[in-house]
């Protein structure tokens, strides 16, 4: 007996689904095929692994590029160059300090999607003590102008909360102080307190 399960899923759709950006309007057909097609399940797994791996590695590569120009800038020079540079810096500092924009804080991006658990690859993780830029996927949730967010520790005690507006199917609040190492849960509520979803979040003290 053979069954009509439709065409295979296209690469771009698998990519969007892995990133939590798949359009809600086409989700039914996508997931119905996925339930019956082993080939597409494997392709999705590979795509998910790829997206997660790129997301994990990219910040590291970006950081490793930074010291090169810093080394160039701050490498030892003759004393007179240092003295001259210091003079220029001292003269300009008073003016620049007040008007120059502060360098952007280096946030760790944390993606919280409704999917998790395959080989541990989709578990949201973040480094301890570092500012966090949360990126919360709202797919399959009611579209509201804003949401209440609460982070609780492993004992259920609230450690942080905020209200944030949705933009293009996501909310992206920032925790400027970061979190200490441990297991946390992020809960997403309507503004009148109805629980919509809970995400696991592991903060790694050694990362």
């Amino acid at each position: 007996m053979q069954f009509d399960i439709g065409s295979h899923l296209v690469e771009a759709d698998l990519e969007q689904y892995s990133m939590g950006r798949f359009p809600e309007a086409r989700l039914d057909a996508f997931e119905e095929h996925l339930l019956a097609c082993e080939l597409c399940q494997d392709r999705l797994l590979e795509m998910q692994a790829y997206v997660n791996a790129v997301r994990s590695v990219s910040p590291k590569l970006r950081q490793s590029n930074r010291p090169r120009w810093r080394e160039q800038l701050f490498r030892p020079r003759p004393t007179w160059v240092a003295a001259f540079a210091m003079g220029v810096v001292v003269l300009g500092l008073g003016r620049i300090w007040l008007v120059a924009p502060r360098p952007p804080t280096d946030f760790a991006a944390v993606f919280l999607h409704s999917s998790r658990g395959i080989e541990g690859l989709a578990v949201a993780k973040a480094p301890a003590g570092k500012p966090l830029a949360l990126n919360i996927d709202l797919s399959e949730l009611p579209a509201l102008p804003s949401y209440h967010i609460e982070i609780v520790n492993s004992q259920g005690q609230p450690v942080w909360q905020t209200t944030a507006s949705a933009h293009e199917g996501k909310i992206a609040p920032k925790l400027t102080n970061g979190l200490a190492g441990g297991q946390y849960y992020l809960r997403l509520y309507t503004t009148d307190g109805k629980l919509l979803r809970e995400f696991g979040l592991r903060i790694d003290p050694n990362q």
Partner: protein
Amino acid sequence: MSPSLSPRKPVLVAPKEAADEGPGQNWLALVESITRGERSGMEELYRVFSRGVRFYLCRQLGPQDLDDKVHDTFVIVVQAIRRGELREPDRLMGFVRTVVRRQVAAQIDRSVQSRREQAELATSTAVSDQRNTPEEAAIERQHEEVAEAVLRSISGRDREILTRFYLLEQTQEEICGEMNLSETQFRLLKSRAKARFGELGRKKLARRKYFEK
């Protein structure tokens, strides 16, 4: 017997079977068989959907108690079919998906409720260790090594493009506009990097795990 993967992957079927019944008709035959309580119908249902249901539940809820959740899902589907709740047999795939999604939502509700109750009962409640197992950690590390090799093998500009797309979640239009790229260049870069990742990592990818029986 295997589900058809039309139109790209032809499935070998006996000519008589192919001539007698179209793939759409077979959903009807399957539903009727389950309704009559035939064992073969339930086996066929399980064969077509068991891996997908495991896959979906594992993806949404993790591997804990996966066998029980899959079993519960099939019991619900079969009972509903027998009660005549599936009015359009060719919508069986959608019906199974709806049941699975409800299972996921119910499980999430239960988990949240249970965690709340535990927190109210004690201040030092034991929670399950959600860290990766050594095997999972090794697989994750391998994936990252492959991704790092791929990203290091391309130019800094190409790397920036991939970072903007996957990490910073900029749209294709934003990236193409800011980095002066055509859509074709953008798509090619992405697909080449992904293909390279697959090529380097294929042997290392442990693709079948919890959802595989």
